[in-house]
């Protein structure tokens, strides 16, 4: 256990600038999305128990806390997808490695506006 915490701590405190942020965010986003996926399969499973059970459970996702978490989910999915594409490009065309840092900023330039737009529609009902 101590060993696991030590290697986790080393992974977080290592100073690697963009490449390091990319790695930490990719991992955290992946784990976060996986956690939601398990919940998501469970909530869709509830359709087999009938309309009332399903609709009642879905109410959970309209709660303000759930909506804020949803914005995190949108960021996580979009970031993980486009940073994953960056990893694929570097892996299959190793000469692009010199642009690894610039490509990470490009990933952010794609992820943040998509998160902002989808996040707006997710949070807007809270202010109606």
């Amino acid at each position, binding site marked *: 256990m101590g060993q696991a915490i030590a*290697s986790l701590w080393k992974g977080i405190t290592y100073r690697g600038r963009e490449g390091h942020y990319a790695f930490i965010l990719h991992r955290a986003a992946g784990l976060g999305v996986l956690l939601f996926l*398990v919940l998501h*399969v469970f909530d869709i499973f509830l359709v*087999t128990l009938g309309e009332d059970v399903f609709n009642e459970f879905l109410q959970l996702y309209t709660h303000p806390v759930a909506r804020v978490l*949803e914005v995190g989910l949108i960021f996580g*999915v979009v970031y993980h997808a486009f940073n994953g594409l960056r990893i694929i490009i570097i892996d299959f065309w190793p000469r692009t490695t010199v642009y690894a840092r610039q490509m990470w900023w490009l990933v952010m330039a794609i992820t943040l506006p998509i998160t902002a737009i989808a996040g707006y529609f997710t949070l807007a009902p809270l202010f109606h």
Partner: protein
Amino acid sequence: MNTRINHRTLSRAKPDGGGFETFSWYFMRVSGALLLLIAVFHLLLMHVYIRVENIDFNTVVTRWTGPWGAFWRLYDLALLVFALTHGFNGLRWVIDDYIHRPGWNALIKGVALLLAVVVILMGAYTIFSFRAPAPSFAFSLR
């Protein structure tokens, strides 16, 4: 510098040998590229086009039993299988990175594998067993 970059902040080096770990390395990239298309589309469809507050039982009825029902069931099966195998394989890599004691490593990966199998079966059961509820208003329309 070798062309095979082996630095954790860039990406994971491809394992040699052509065995399961090499397959796993390629699988993450192929399934990841597919998920970039189908998972991001699914996310934007549900959160921007339909919006979460409008999703209810009828959304599922329309999606799975409408004229495009077979297509959407296949689409959702692809999402289920690729997202969960990709996700749980990623979790396996994370466990290997931080849990070094062989006993704990094997135990936690075993629990994760069991959870992966249960969740995928549960999702597949939901997709294939769903039937449109009998329309109770059928005769009142006459």
